[in-house]
């Protein structure tokens, strides 16, 4: 976090943020499933000024052989920021930040996917950040989750994700870039709606225990809103392509 400079006023007296949102309001989110033809499943997410694409290849035979797990499918996630996705050019290739994000996202999905149905297989999830504006890892989880469903990968549930945080000493939902830059805390969270379990949780900044508690509830509630958007995107996808709809009973609640 930016260290909590309070010189910059991000929220006015009426609790309205720079972009006009209330403290507990999400940025506009648009989700579209099935946007790529080569991938087995794909999704595009616009979340505020974030533009994120996710593609799923697999389940397919894992190779080289020595990476195969005889009891389940291997799940791999690659999160990549396009060089032109932010103001200062990102050098191509995985930096430490991308490696960590790829790992926590893969961890979030590994137990949600019914991997034991595909021994020796591999499921690859590629997340491309075309435009970044704070919150790309949550947008990536949301997109990946819809892409997995679009690919017909059997899962316990979809995985929505959202961050809560703090700025100007107030808890706020879904931090934008300016809020992230000078904010005081950020708490990205991903849950499995069916069980309410948390599968991704990171936090940095400064929160009292009580603030943490409220922020976590805030992000979990927002996840449930996003969950509806994910389901809606899939419904639209199946409606338009009823004849090639994948067999994904698990995700249709």
């Amino acid at each position: 976090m930016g260290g909590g400079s309070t010189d910059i006023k991000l929220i006015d007296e009426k609790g309205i943020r720079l972009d006009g949102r209330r403290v507990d309001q999400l940025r506009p989110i648009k989700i579209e499933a099935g946007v790529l033809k080569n991938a087995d499943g794909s999704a595009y997410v616009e979340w505020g000024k974030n533009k994120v694409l996710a593609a799923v290849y697999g389940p397919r035979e894992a190779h080289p052989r020595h990476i195969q797990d005889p009891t389940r499918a291997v799940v791999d996630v690659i999160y990549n920021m396009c060089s032109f996705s932010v103001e200062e050019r990102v050098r191509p290739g995985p930096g430490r930040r991308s490696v960590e994000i790829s790992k926590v996202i893969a961890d979030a999905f590994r137990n949600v996917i019914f991997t034991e149905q595909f021994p020796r297989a591999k499921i690859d999830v590629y997340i491309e950040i075309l435009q970044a504006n704070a919150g790309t890892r949550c947008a990536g989880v949301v997109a990946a989750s819809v892409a997995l469903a679009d690919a017909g990968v059997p899962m316990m549930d979809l995985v929505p994700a959202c961050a809560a945080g703090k700025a100007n000493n107030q808890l706020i939902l879904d931090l934008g870039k300016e809020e992230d830059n000078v904010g005081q805390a950020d708490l990205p969270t991903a849950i499995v709606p069916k069980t309410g379990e948390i599968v991704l949780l990171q936090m940095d900044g400064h929160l009292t225990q009580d603030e943490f508690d409220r922020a976590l509830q805030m992000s979990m509630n927002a996840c449930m809103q996003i969950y509806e958007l994910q389901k809606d995107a899939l419904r639209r996808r199946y409606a338009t392509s009823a004849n090639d709809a994948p067999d994904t009973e698990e995700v249709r609640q």
Partner: protein
Amino acid sequence: MSDVVSHIMKDQIFKLAARGMREDGRAFDRMRPMSIETGIVGPAEGSARVRLGDTDVFVGVKVELGTPFQDRPTDGVLMTGAELRPIAHADFETGPPQPPAVEISRVIDRGIRESQMIDLSKLCITPKEKVYMVFVDIEPLDYFGNIFDAGAAGAVAALRTAKVPAKRHGFGEDFPMPVRAFPASVTFAKIGKHVMVDPTLREELVSDARLTIVTDEKGDVRAMQKGLSGSFSYAEIKECLLLATKLGRDVRALKTG
């Protein structure tokens, strides 16, 4: 690309070609429909999305500060990179760019550079010390063949609509990218004895040779690259050149959204 191309597919494409036909119904001398959107990525100095049939490519331009090359002390620097990332096709892999991606980068770079599209002398801040570096990055998202032309069209469109962010770097007001030419790239595949323009992925997989030709507004040749293991005759190349000039005009005439 996949080493194991089904013989059936190969047969099919060859047989069609023998009758002057292609899988998607095009004539040999027709490109797939191309559409170009620009200004789609906020943080980029310039950006474009090109769809060429089912091929879908993003191109972004970023401008940073750097030092000039020793032998060009008063010129800015242009760097063009293409990656074939695994999101775009099941056969692509992660890791540093392999020879096919390097070839694509270099051929697209050559078209821009050799047409003198960017006036690099206008990108010098302090001779020998500080210049603008223009990075053109090409990111295929869905690969269905002919990334050479889709990527080149995207690079050209992104550059034509790019600004130089002088203000961000503390050197006065932003200004438009100093563009002075409009190159267009047209690529041919040779399948058996037949030469056809703008190959699809399946056509690429069975083709013997590839020829990319970049022409400018006057129809002059600015760059050329023969690729793959096959060969072209002198006559074929001359024919391709004529067609490339004609189709290059069509590419330049496209409205960008």
